[in-house]
């Protein structure tokens, strides 16, 4: 993550947005709406917006459910727009990822008699996000990935 995370404010539609969201489910719902309404997202085509909303929802909900399973904290989201898409940088102070790596996102087996009701989140993230990187640094989880146009 770059040292300078200040949003760039050049004109009426900034190319970057930084938002801090309390790490609980209701705040994530409201935070997602704010992220999707942000100027930085506005030029995305409809399909790209749907994908962005889905990936961000899965990432943020995972943080609430797993990273902040034992204590509360905040989620810091930085979105930066460039020619080919949006760079997403997401930080939290929750528990580290298991084995210090994001889950593989293997699709659970679809057994007709006992269908899985969960385990799809990381599969969706890995299917839709590009250049996913994770670091644990100074008690923080730092996740970054790209959403293509």
């Amino acid at each position, binding site marked *: 993550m770059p040292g300078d995370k200040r949003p760039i404010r050049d004109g009426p539609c900034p190319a970057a947005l930084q938002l801090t969201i309390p790490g609980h489910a209701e705040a994530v719902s409201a935070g997602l709406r704010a992220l999707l309404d942000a100027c930085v997202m506005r030029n995305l085509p*409809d399909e790209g917006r*749907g994908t962005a*909303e*889905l990936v961000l*929802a899965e990432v943020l909900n995972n943080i609430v459910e797993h990273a902040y399973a034992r204590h509360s904290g905040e989620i810091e989201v930085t979105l930066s727009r460039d020619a080919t898409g949006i760079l997403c940088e997401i930080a939290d102070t929750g528990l580290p990822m298991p084995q210090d790596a994001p889950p593989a996102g293997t699709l659970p087996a679809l057994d007709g008699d006992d269908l899985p*009701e969960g385990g*799809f989140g990381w599969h969706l993230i890995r299917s839709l996000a590009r250049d996913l990187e994770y670091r644990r640094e100074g008690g923080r989880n730092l996740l970054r990935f790209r959403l293509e146009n």
Partner: protein
Amino acid sequence: MELQAEEQGGALVVHVLQDRIDAASAIRFKDRMRDVTQGGLRRVVLDLSQVAFLDSSGLGAVVAVRKALGPDRALELAGLTPTVQKVFRLTRMDTIFRIHDSLSDGLRDAG
């Protein structure tokens, strides 16, 4: 979670009158679905045409509803919007559920 249920062509049609089934609303969706599907109609068609967004929690809730209906009743889906369709396709749940392009297609197929 606002749902509206009605009998149409021998099936129970449940319209979801809300634009998201997500982590914040998945449990309420499951609870409301349990209430509205208590009648004995064998076929349940879930009209998702007003749902613009469904995440993995929402998907899990739809799967849970299907399982709760039991082996003798069917949960079919109709009117998936593009992002919802994408979730079903990427998770291959589109191979498990009977999915109709629109509610009228679904009811026509009922014969």
